[in-house]
């Protein structure tokens, strides 16, 4: 395609409402024919100002606020927050509660990875794989619902421990589901590494070298698929991860296939850890008392969310409302790196590369670039667009 002369290149707005993206984010992809020449991202569509709202709520209420930052990994946000506040308050959480927290975190990692795997297969146009992965994911959702009473925001965490306990019926259900999922994951790993048509869409696509990954600041499985040794559960074990160590999964190829393989192999780690916890679950009570006013001070709490390192900075001024909570989600780092990665690829690969990073958004924003009359590009904000729509219909229906 070495056409000389000015090719008609235009900006393809992917998002904020787009079938490829389950949550609103807005990519401005400039295309020359089918090749991407430039890409920028605009976030903020689901920004609810949680960091501001938390400053006017008590420590107990802000737990549920922070839990709703992300719909898929609500438990890890609550856990990071609780670990930080307990560190500030100098409270020792009973070992049984820590073990249950790790168990639910691993269950959440399984359901998050299976969800991502299905959506990525759907992006590639392999709907059958999407349907099967989401069917198997239901097993984990049923476990979480049986254990905590809610499929998504399970709210297992509470400041100072956990609310729910594991009895034998839960244990039997977990063991049975894990064995079924283990067998299915072997099958999916085989599909991802063997299926000729699927490999056409993943092998050698969206390659990110190790140095690129480090410079662009990617975190989590996406970075580990490019051989970056960065895993909080291994390097800085929190909660009960020191008693139930996890092995880091690395891959050197750095392409989309590697990202699939890393996440699926991580599932095996999660199964192993869960079964280990079930064997040696320490007994003891579930919670300890924690004062309503937390001592003044600052702390940093880092945990490994399914998508990468989740960083919490918590500052307290001694009152019963937090002074400042900064939650830096892993997706913001991955998003910045993927945008730079898109240049040079085909438009058809863009959804796959975006999905490859597993964007879990409850981040953000609204901008439509309408190419009116092929010359001038005009910027609409959400209200302006709504207003424009209303006027249009009045003019035409009158």
């Amino acid at each position, binding site marked *: 395609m070495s056409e000389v002369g000015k090719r008609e290149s235009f900006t393809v707005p992917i998002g904020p409402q787009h079938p490829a993206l389950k949550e609103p984010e807005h990519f401005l992809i400039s295309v020359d024919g089918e090749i991407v020449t430039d890409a920028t991202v605009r976030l903020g569509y689901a920004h609810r100002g949680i960091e501001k709202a938390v400053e006017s709520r008590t420590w107990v209420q802000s737990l549920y606020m922070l839990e709703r930052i992300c719909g898929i990994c609500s438990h890890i946000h609550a856990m990071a927050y609780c670990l930080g506040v307990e560190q500030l308050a100098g409270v020792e959480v009973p070992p049984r509660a820590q073990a249950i927290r790790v168990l639910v975190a691993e269950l959440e990692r399984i359901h998050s990875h299976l969800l991502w795997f299905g959506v990525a297969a759907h992006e590639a146009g392999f709907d*059958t794989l999407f349907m099967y992965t989401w069917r198997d994911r239901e097993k984990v959702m049923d476990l979480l619902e049986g254990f905590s009473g809610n499929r998504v925001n399970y709210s297992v965490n509470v400041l100072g421990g956990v609310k729910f306990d594991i009895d034998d019926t839960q244990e039997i259900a977990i063991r049975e589901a894990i064995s079924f999922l283990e067998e299915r994951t072997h099958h999916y790993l085989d599909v991802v590494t063997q299926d000729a048509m699927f490999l056409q869409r993943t092998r050698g696509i969206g390659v990110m070298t190790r140095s690129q990954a480090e410079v662009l600041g990617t975190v989590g499985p996406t970075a580990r698929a490019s051989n970056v040794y960065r895993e909080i559960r291994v390097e800085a074990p929190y909660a009960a991860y020191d008693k139930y160590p996890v092995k880091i999964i690395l891959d050197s190829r750095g392409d989309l296939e590697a990202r699939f393989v890393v996440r699926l192999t991580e599932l095996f780690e999660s199964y192993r850890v869960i079964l280990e916890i079930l064997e040696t679950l320490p007994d003891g009570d579930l919670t300890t008392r924690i004062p309503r006013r937390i001592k003044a001070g600052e702390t940093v709490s880092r945990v490994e969310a399914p998508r990468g390192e989740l960083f919490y900075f918590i500052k307290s001024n001694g009152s019963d409302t937090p002074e400042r909570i900064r939650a830096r989600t892993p997706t913001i780092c991955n998003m910045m790196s993927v945008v730079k990665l898109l240049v040079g690829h085909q438009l058809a690969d863009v959804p796959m590369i975006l999905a490859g990073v597993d964007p879990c958004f409850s981040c953000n924003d609204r901008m439509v670039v309408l190419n009116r009359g*092929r010359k001038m590009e005009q910027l609409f904000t959400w209200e302006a667009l709504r207003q424009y729509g209303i006027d249009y219909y009045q003019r035409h229906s009158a």
Partner: protein
Amino acid sequence: MESTTISDILLSLIALLIFPGGLFLLFVGLAYEWIDRKLLARMQNRVGPRWFQPWADIIKLLAKEEVVPDAVDARLFIGLPIIALAGVLTAAIYIPFPGLPPVGSFPGDLIVTIFLLSLLTICLGLAGANTLDRFSLMGATRALTQLFAYEAPFLLALLGPAFVAGSWEINEIIGYTDGHWLIITQPFGFIVAVIGLIGKLEIPPLDAPEAETEIVAGALTEYSGRGLALFRLGKGVALVLGLALIAAFYLGGVATPLLFLAKTLALLLVIVGIHALFTRLRIDQTVGLWWRYGTLLVLVQWLGIIIWQGVMI
């Protein structure tokens, strides 16, 4: 020419509008679309849509308001879906799709039928190019590139049986294929015909022109209401006609309506199986692969026929 009496006109009108022609064909088209979606659902371990879902969709779409975008040639925007459906419906006259001999036929109607079938895709491409919306522009370019890549091999694959039957009139070809199962003698031709049909109708895995996750609905992004309904109907009817054509040519002709129905359904099962089994390929992959292997396969098939014909005579 014997005098065309009123009854002839009436008969052909009924044939055109009611029985093997218009309404019945639309009905069968939607029925096949339902079977397609139900089979796919069952293959994906889902319950799948209820029997009246396609009809409900079409009625809903017809009831919906037709929005004609501003920067678009309104006459073309409204006219294209009508031409597409009309083209496909006229192709039905020459195809024995309900197991009965075709209504009309003239020497060389095979070429006309195949052109009419591809008229649908051409209208789709023009409809996409007609608007300003990026997604439909992308969809239009992809639809037309895929059309060129899949049109020639599909035509050659269908000419195989015609060549063996010694005529280009569907009616006579069916007469010849009645006894012979050409799938055995011309296997490559059959494969190319089936994959060509999948490519022409943009059924996944070759649905790059309307890849939902990249360009929303491809060329149809701007369409809503009546236009979309007509295009959907056209697709359904084209599916039925394509299946009937291949079944009639390669699976031992039109024995009895019931047996023919079984053959087309078996072919549909194969196509849905392929749909469920594979990932969507990028447009450059589908076109690139097909130009090399598809055309090669059908030429090898032709070579086989010529040599076989030469030896026989």
